[in-house]
């Protein structure tokens, strides 16, 4: 990434801040928070990398979402590079679209985070059989459903209204991905297990906290992901 790219968020924020000074105080406050985010570094990793601390506050939360987007993008990249031979007609094109969307999400978060973005991670996909359509699509469903639940649980934790808006724009696209994968492998049960069917929370999508999501995806990470610094409420 170029230097101009990594510094541009701050530059943009400053431009906006001066505009918002006349436009509205509450609006200006949220941009200030965004500008302030860049103070929160991801914990440095030593040469024997064993842990990745996602950090604190809005920056930590963005790094958390970046981690999930990295995971999805890396997965689809692997699928697209060596697709299972039993993929049906048209499916590779759709999975390529998914790869592109996830890469755009990943790179956008990187751009937002600038120098605070986590490094590129080599994930452990050894549990997935990349030569089997069934295995690949089952893994895709896991990643997408997990992503939707993760966005549902993380978006409310942001203090910046601007970042909340951006994150919610991505969250619904992840839900579209999840629905798409389910339509490929279980078209007669599109919402089972991910939309509450009864009780007080009937009709609500699954929500998972960052520790729950990291625990569910732990086998894919090459090292321990530390989320204890992230806000919880």
């Amino acid at each position: 990434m170029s230097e101009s790219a990594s510094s541009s968020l701050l530059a943009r924020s400053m431009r906006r801040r001066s505009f918002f000074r006349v436009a509205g105080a509450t609006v200006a406050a949220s941009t200030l928070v965004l500008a302030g985010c860049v103070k929160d570094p991801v914990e440095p990793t030593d040469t024997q990398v064993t842990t990745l601390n996602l950090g604190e506050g809005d920056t930590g939360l963005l790094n958390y979402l970046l981690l999930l987007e990295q995971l999805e993008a890396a997965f689809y990249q692997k699928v697209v590079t060596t697709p299972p031979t039993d993929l049906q007609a048209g499916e590779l094109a759709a999975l390529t679209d998914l790869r592109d969307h996830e890469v755009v999400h990943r790179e956008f978060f990187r751009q937002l985070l600038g120098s605070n973005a986590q490094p590129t991670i080599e994930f452990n996909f050894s549990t997935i059989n990349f030569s089997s359509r069934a295995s690949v699509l089952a893994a895709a469903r896991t990643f997408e459903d997990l992503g939707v639940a993760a966005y549902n649980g993380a978006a409310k934790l942001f203090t910046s209204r601007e970042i909340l808006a951006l994150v919610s724009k991505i969250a619904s696209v992840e839900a579209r991905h999840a629905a798409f994968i389910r339509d490929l492998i279980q078209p007669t049960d599109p919402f089972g297990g991910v939309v509450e069917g009864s009780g007080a929370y009937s009709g609500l999508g699954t929500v998972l906290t960052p520790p729950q999501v990291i625990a569910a995806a732990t086998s894919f990470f090459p090292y321990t992901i530390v989320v204890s610094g992230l806000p919880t409420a």
Partner: protein
Amino acid sequence: MNIFRIIEQLSEVDSDVLGRFDSRRAVFKTLGDTAKKGALAAAPVFVASLFQKAYGQTTAPSVIDVLNYALTLELLEEDFYTKMIAAGQVPTGAPAAAIALIKKHESAHVTLLTNTVKALNGTPVTGKKFDPAKFPADYTTQLAFAQALEDTGVRAYKGQAGNLMGKTAGSTNLLQVALQIHSVEARHAAHIRTMRAQAPWIPAADSNLPAPLGPVYTGAIPESNVTQSGVNLTSQLGATYSANDAAASFDEILTMAEVLDASRAGGLVV
């Protein structure tokens, strides 16, 4: 100065920016006329007074207003699916099962929102119906309307997220609940798009479709948008991405005023 660019950026922080201006549509018209007459020198003063009016008072909707707005849309959806099931044209098997399940979700959303408004000592809206005169006679068009309603719902919930930040009803975090409903509306939208043999996500070209679909994808920030937080996703992410991929990677907001516009959900309610 590009006033529309400013408003677009502002809408990323203040989803109701257009709502603030909506009643002053005449003002925009005047702005356009002024520009045409070459009186551009007066424009900055004019724009300043516009923002002064828009932000000079507290105009953010109350939590009850937001919840009743969501409830209005859920009632509209619930009634639409009730009519669709009653019309008896949905093919049996997977399509009928999906429509029945989606209807059940919408009814659950109605119940949840109604109870939440009551818990906050508000008065929940009731009796919002899908206009029978607009109800399509054939299944194919019914499904197109379902897509329009679901994709509108996704954009509408997204547009109000900021207004629910930090708001609770008892111990329930309203923003989280709204986001959970939002994700379900997106799953519905994608599933119905798949039933219609469309891409589950929204390609840039969809804004050009005839009503009821086209207007759903337009707005101050149309679904064809490729710029987020000032970053052009097609060219400024270190590699080049197609406009379709960039646009489909992000769903955009609709403001309350836009959703309730006669060309969108507002035109379907009685």
